[in-house]
Structures are given as C-alpha cells and as structure tokens.
C-alpha cells in the first residue's frame, strides 16, 4: 500500500492554522520520519492520515486514488503519543484489542498475541496489568497492540517521546529489528533529529506552525543499522543538514542574529 499526501492544510475551527502545505510519500515497506519542533502540526498530520480529521485543503491518496477520512478511518495502524493502555485489562488483553475489534475469535487472538510477546520483550508479563510495566515495556505493549491490528501502514506519533535517553536508544534499535522482519510501512513522527536519521529511509522536516515541508532528506545509510552508527561522520552530516532549517527558524523566533 502506498500512501501519499498532497498539499495538506488544516485550520481548526478556533482559527489556529496547524498545517499550511504538507506533501509526502510513504511507499510500501518504507520507513519515513517526519521531524519538526513542537507545534509544527505533526500530530495533526497523523490524525488526518488516520482518518480522524478532515483536512481544510489538500488530499490523501492510497495507491494513487484519492480517499476521504471515512475510508481512511480504521485502515491505518495509528499509535498516539500516550500508550493508552487500559488498566482494567492485562497486557495480553490490551495487546489483543485490535484483533478483538476486527472480530477475531478470542482464543486465536490470544494465541497470535502470545507468540509475539518474547519479540516485544514482554514475555512473563502477559497477565500483569499495565501499571506493573516499565515505561519502555508500556510503549512496546502499545506497539504490539498496533502491530497486531494488522494494518499495512503504521502511523507512530512520538512513540519514544516519554522515555529516558538510554531506553530510547535501545528502543530505536529494537524497532528497526521488528520493522526489518515485518517490512510494514512506517510513518514515524518525532522532534528528535538523530532519532529520525537513525530510523528512516527518508526524513521530512516540518517548519514551525503552521507546518510546511522545509526540507526532504534521503538517508542513504546502510541497513541493518546498529546504535554505533550514530557516532559516524556520515550520520553527523545528515543530522546537520536536517537541523539547519530548523535552527534558522528557532533563532529568528528568539531574536538571535546568526
């Protein structure tokens, strides 16, 4: 499945212009990152692609055909910033949510989910409540819920944003491992430039509100990628290229002359 956005804009009824003009492409099996400062409309962009919001202008295409929000809703694997695990369900019960809502029989849903617990680093926590999980485990449980829902395209909204730096790094490497085995298309939203470079095939840089695409950078670093990659000059150069347009804007806002 190929997902495209053309000239997306969103103005909220209260008058806030969140997105001005965003076009991007996500091809089958690609890992694409969208990076931008807070308030660049990253979450708005994902909500439009998930079919939760109608854009004010622009269109969304799936495999070349324009689709409305009604069609998109329920077709994308959407993972919001907060893990939203339900305390009244066990980790397993949370993981099977998507399967359950897709009408998969309880026993087979559990079987499918249980098979994935070791790969998601959750073995032994199947019957524990979310409050018994660490921050990293909670995010992996939320990702497992998203993966198990079985959509071709995953829209991930800063999934590691709330984690500490060391856990974040480990989670990045782990996510790439899972992705390389599954080859689902992933659109990964973050405000962390090195994270975007480490993970993605291509990075879209959004400007500050209202969000528009300030730069598109192809990341030609070899795969599979390990954390050691982040120390190489090629990695640093790519980060620099992405940061440049963001820096200029942040400085201008603060009145710093560069």
């Amino acid at each position, binding site marked *: 499945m190929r997902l495209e956005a053309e000239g997306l804009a969103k103005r909220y009824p209260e008058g806030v212009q969140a997105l001005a003009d965003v076009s991007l492409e996500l091809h089958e099996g690609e890992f694409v990152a969208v990076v931008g400062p807070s308030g660049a409309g990253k979450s708005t962009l994902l909500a439009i692609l998930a079919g939760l919001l109608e854009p004010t202008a622009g269109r969304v295409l799936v495999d070349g055909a324009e689709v409305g929000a009604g069609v998109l809703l329920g077709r994308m694997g959407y993972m*919001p910033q907060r893990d939203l695990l339900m*305390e009244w369900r066990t980790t397993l019960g949370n993981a099977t949510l998507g399967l359950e809502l897709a009408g998969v029989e309880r026993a087979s849903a559990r079987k499918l989910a249980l098979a994935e617990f070791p790969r998601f680093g959750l073995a032994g926590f199947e019957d524990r409540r979310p409050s018994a999980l660490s921050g990293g485990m909670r995010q992996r449980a939320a990702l497992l819920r998203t993966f198990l829902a079985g959509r071709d395209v995953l829209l991930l909204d800063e999934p590691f944003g709330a984690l500490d730096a060391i856990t974040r790094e480990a989670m990045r490497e782990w996510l790439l491992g899972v992705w390389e085995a599954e080859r689902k298309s992933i659109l990964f939203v973050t405000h962390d430039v090195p994270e975007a470079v480490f993970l993605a095939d291509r990075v879209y840089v959004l400007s500050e509100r209202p969000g528009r695409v300030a730069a598109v950078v192809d990341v030609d670093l070899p795969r599979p990628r390990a954390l050691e990659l982040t120390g190489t000059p090629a990695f640093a150069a790519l980060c620099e290229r992405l940061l440049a347009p963001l820096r200029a804007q942040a400085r201008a806002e603060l009145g710093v002359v560069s």
Partner: protein
Amino acid sequence: MSAGTRLVVALGGRLEPRPRRARGVARRVLPPLAVGVVLIGAWELYVALSGVSSQIAPGPGDVASALVRDRSVLLSGAGTTLEEIALGYAIAAVVGIGLAVALSSWRIVERALYPWLVVSQVIPLPALAPILVLWTGFDVRPKLIVVALVSFFPIAVNAIDGLRATDPELVVLLRTLGASRRQVFAIARVPTALPYLFSGLRVAAAFAVTGAVFAEWVGSTGVGLGYLILSYGNQTATADVFAVVVVLALIGVALFALVGLAERVAVPWWRASE
C-alpha cells in the same frame, strides 16, 4: 526488583515485612478499635462520676443490657427495616444507573432531565413524606420510595461523572481500530465509570439507612427500627433508644462494607493501582 525497591534495600529498609497479612489486618483494625474503647470508657466514666440519671444518659452497660433485653423486638424490627433498605436501594441503583447511561448517551436527554434531577434533591424530604403517605398508604411502598429517592441521587450523579470521564484519546484510538459506539461504551466507558459508580453506591448505602428510619417515623404501621426509636422515646426508655441506634449503626457499617467488598470484586484494578 525495581529500581525503587533496590534503593530502599540499599538504604537499609527491609523489602518484605515478614508476617505481611496479619500485620496489615492488625494495622487496619486496631486503631479504630482503640478509639472505640476509649470513647466507651470515657462515656461510662462520665455517667458513673456525674451521677446523671440513666434516663437522660444511660451508660454503655445500660445500653448493652437493653440490647439483650430487647433482642427479639430489635431483630424483627431490623428485618423490616433491612427489607425496606434493600428494596429501596435496589430501586435506586437500577434507576440511578439507567438514568446515568441515558443521560451520558444522549445530549438531549441530559439537557432535558438534569435540571429535574437536581430539583428532585433540593426539595426537602420531610415536605414530601406526608404526601407520599397519603398517596400510597401506610404499607411498605412509601418507605421504598423515600429510601430510593434519597439514595438514587449519589448513584446517578457519580455514574454520570464516571461515564463522562473516559479518556477522549482512548476513544480516538478505539475508533481507529474500528470500534463502534457500543464497543467504545463496553470497552472504555463502563470500566472507567465503575470506580465512580462505587463511590456513589457507598454514599447511597449510608443515605438509605437514614431514609428508611425517616420513612418509618412518618408513615409507620408499628414495625421497623425507626418506629422502635419513636416508641421507646415516648416511654423515655433512653437505653433502649440507644440499643436501636447501635443496631442501625451496625446495619449501616455492614452495608458500607458489603459495597466495598463488591467493589473489590468488580474493580480489582482500582485498589491495586493505588
């Protein structure tokens, strides 16, 4: 071992207190028991030292012997009153939860009914009681209505709050997973509302006892604990009045505990996450 407990250990704290369960129970039961003993002791002491007439202020000993003396009357009275409480409370729970679901599901129902819900509570009950008796006679019905009327409000209001407390982001997530309105209700709204509902049920349990006693004062046919209070009061049998009060207190505490027990079964994640 989590980082937190490791720190506690490192600082010299013990990880697992040994007789955990027994100690927990003792810690919970002993303090209120001690307060009770002190209060009863002080009461007995005051009565003994002040020489006040036992008709004005009977000591704990007098009340205890009244409890034994009146046991059969108290028991049958408690049966009647408990029946009123149980039935009235059940009506209140059904009506309260039903109203809450209707109000939180349709905006128009909420706009139409919520003000009347409030009106039903600001009318002082004593003003209503004689009318209820006139309309429904002296049998058990007006008592059920009074009990239901005082206890449905906390149930309804808390259930409405609970059904509204669902995390809106969770609803959004469920919609992207293809959930219908009904599925959102069952998967997210009801579990979120349960702890709120039980708060309402607990308050309502206490209200129900008061409601039953009051209903018996107004329209009694000579049965129930409320009636016994009036009857003993007229005879200035003060120790016997206190005996009835003790039985009522026991009923109230028992109801409260019963609701708490039901809560533990129905909402196990709530206490566990505290």
